[in-house]
């Protein structure tokens, strides 16, 4: 059954049970997303997709709120734009967005300043290079939850990673801080495939960025002992 609602002062008609985000996209209205992914369950974590709904006290995340008959929705009201700008500024103040061109683009679009909170403490983290397939750099992690979801019921049913810590200390981690090879991880890289900010990256892409040549990277296949010659890392 279809329902009618107002979005940005335009009457639209959508199927019952769709989200406000789907309703907008079906009707050519752009709502930005960061943590949303079509292949994972939506959890409204990043709040960048918030919209203003008449009669609701606070802004509503479009990725999970269902379209309702006769709803009046504003997707670009001043309140919405201010909220999105603030979210982007807070992200930029605490994490490394260098591998997230889409978010950088959003910052330009919303006039967000990366210096709005100069005293903010950045979430720094060492690059974790503990398995042959991918590296983890949680300085670039915005805690969108996608990696945890695809490792669990959204794809892999492997449950190797989860949220670790509380509040500001929250980080994606393994149980008992084990290295990836010591967990249940099957190295499928589904997590790498859905990471929006380059916090998870294929090992070979990472090494190429570090300035290694394709030939040097290929030699790494020859075994652990030879790795030291190329990267200068301690031989295991």
């Amino acid at each position, binding site marked *: 059954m279809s329902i009618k609602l107002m979005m940005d002062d335009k009457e639209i008609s959508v199927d019952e049970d769709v989200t406000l985000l789907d309703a907008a996209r079906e009707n050519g209205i752009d709502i930005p997303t960061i943590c949303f992914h079509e*292949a994972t369950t939506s959890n409204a974590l990043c709040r960048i997709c918030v919209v203003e709904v008449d009669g609701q006290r606070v802004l509503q995340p479009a990725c999970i709120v269902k379209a309702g008959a006769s709803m009046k929705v504003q997707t670009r009201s001043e309140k919405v734009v201010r909220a999105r700008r603030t979210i982007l500024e807070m992200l930029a103040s605490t994490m490394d967005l260098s591998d997230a*061109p889409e978010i950088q683009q959003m910052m330009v679009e919303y006039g967000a300043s990366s210096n709005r909170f100069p005293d903010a403490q950045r979430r720094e983290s060492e690059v974790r290079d503990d398995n042959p397939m991918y590296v983890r750099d949680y300085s670039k992690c915005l805690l969108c939850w996608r990696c945890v979801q695809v490792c669990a019921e959204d794809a892999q049913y492997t449950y190797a990673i989860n949220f670790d810590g509380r509040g500001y200390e929250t980080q994606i981690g393994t149980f008992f801080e084990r290295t990836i090879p010591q967990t249940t991880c*099957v190295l499928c890289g589904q997590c790498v495939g859905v990471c929006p900010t380059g916090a998870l990256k294929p090992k070979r892409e990472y090494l*190429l960025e570090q300035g290694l040549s394709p030939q040097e990277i*290929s030699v790494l*296949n020859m075994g652990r002992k030879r790795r030291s010659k190329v990267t200068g890392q301690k031989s295991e």
Partner: protein
Amino acid sequence: MIQPDHITTTICPYCGVGCTLQLHVKDDFIYKVTSPFDSPVNHGNLCVKGRFGYDYVYHPKRVTTPLIRKTKQEAGKRTQAFDLSEWREAAWDEALDYAADRLVEIYKRDGSDAMAVYCCAKATNEDNYLLQKMYRALFRTNNVDHCTRLCHAGSVVALQQAIGSSAMSNTASQVILNDVFIVTGSNTSENHPIIALQMKEAVQKHGAKMIVVDPRRIDLVDMAEMWLPLKPGTNVPLFSAMAHVIVKEELVNWDFVNSRTEGFDEFIASLEKFTPEYAEEISGVPADDICRAARLYARAKNAAIYWGMGISQLSHGTASALALIHLAFLTGHIGRDGTGLNPLRGQNNVQGASDMGAMPFHYPGYMGVDKPENRAKWEKTWNIEEGGLSLKPGLTTTEILSHAHEGGIRSLFIMGENPMMSEPNLNETRKHMEQLEFLVAQDIFINESGAFADVFLPATPFAEKDGTFSNTDRRVQRVRAAHNPRGDARPDWRIICDLARRIESRLGRATAKWDYTHPEQILREMAGVNSDYAGITYERIDKVGLIYPVPTMDHPGTPTLFTESFPRGRGKFHVLDYVPVREEPDDEYPFILTTGRLLEHWHGGTMTRNSALNESYPEARVEIHPADAEIHGIRNGSPVKVQSRRGEVVMRAAVTEKTSVGVIFIPWHFAEAAANLLTNDALDPQAKIPEFKACAVQVFPAREKDLPNPGAVLERGRY
């Protein structure tokens, strides 16, 4: 951030699932693999091999120049040369002329029966079509086979006998439509990881009930409604007992049996002895569990069976598969969406290589070589005089090698296969390889088999060629080159054309046509005779593959087979007997050895042992049950010698309840501890598939220094 020069969409070169890959290329180097979330087979999900296991393409040991052995090899004294110093580099012309001269010399002297070829389930449809064409059209022999013989030959023969077709009846993605499904002889999570995800989804999100029938407590058991841990090689009594229960408890779908099958009366009489109690005695699975599984399967609205090597790799592999087929016939769980008989095909293109006629009994399209009317069609297509092609069925993979002797097979062409890892009883295989007079290897690495060759022709891996693969769903999908071949390597189809032209001119034959400029022309030539592929063009499969049969240019493909009838008309019940495995345990060799595969590795290891995958799983481990380990003084991680009547290997133990008491498991990927040194080369009489899944062995504690590579230690939490 690295910006790719381009992104190439292609198909994964590993298992038969056929996942879509996007290869991100910078400076002719793939640095990242992704998969689109709207991909039809895998919905964006990949396994470790698909996402990260492509790096063998760039491995320093890859051979990219034609090579000729420095020391002339003689029959009986042939040796392996792994080191490049034993070879000299040659120009393509020299290597191809040399191969053509020697092959033609042997053919002129000893005739068609001296010639044989192994096609390759890793190569494209086009490559395989051309290689069988070369041997059939030029050397007039049907000694053409490939590794399907070692994998689903039992299933193929059984399905041909009972149904008249030998592919999966339904697509794997239909598993979410199943109410009940049986997974047997398949460690799906490791061997078809993306299908396993869909099975898990079916259970977790769609309420399906999964019945796992397997000697090992595989990963899927965690989500199964029932696990029936049968003794290896006891499929026939177990599944026949399920049929017995279905008949006795009147759960038979009579409409289906009466309208779609034949041979029921004799079959039902033969079922009498297969009581659940009898099956319990033989298989070790409690009779009550057999009854419950039978009821679950028979009473379901939609039920399907998925099976793997545990059914077919037995000296009674054909009978095992027939026992499964009977369950579908009795209940009518075939011919509708969400049902079916589904042998999960192993290789990326084993379905396609079989479709292309890379088998001794069939031309492309499963057209029997012994029928003059089939021969006539291919003679016309290949410009051959009437009656020129051979009506004599050829030798199978295993027979080709066992016939390598004076008066038998004298020359062998191997494209991409590795019999020195994949054949059973490898010590015997070695003797046969030594007997060859001339051997050509066309591959990307000098593997255990290529090391025996006289001439090595460097081919290209999937990332450097165009063509098509046909996956386990019968989905024909486009394979695309991400960059130019490394060094002087050439795509297989080009090498075959260049060699065939040389052979043809030396034989003075009218040309069978080898002047293709693009692989699509090869596919179209084949599709002109093989009606399953008649409506498939590169243009039609540019974005999404087509599921054959595709009989016409506007046909949308056929995901579900047998909706109205079977290719042979009525489905045929067969009378089965329980035949034990050829070598049962005894006092001297008290354990049953069963072999299989690992998530991180692929078959003979030519690709994955030359990849970072090897770092994630660097050594073979023998799985042994804690109770058995204690009796034999074996600890987890301690070295163990495993011995059979045919050979012995040393590796570390994995003491685990994943395997049952009395059964040990070894993965067969590791050349330095090759499980196939131990396995039994007893063959199924019809399918000629060897009994990889059960032989008798003994275990002994060994010393650290006996290990072939003590430095390689598996450090993974999940194993």
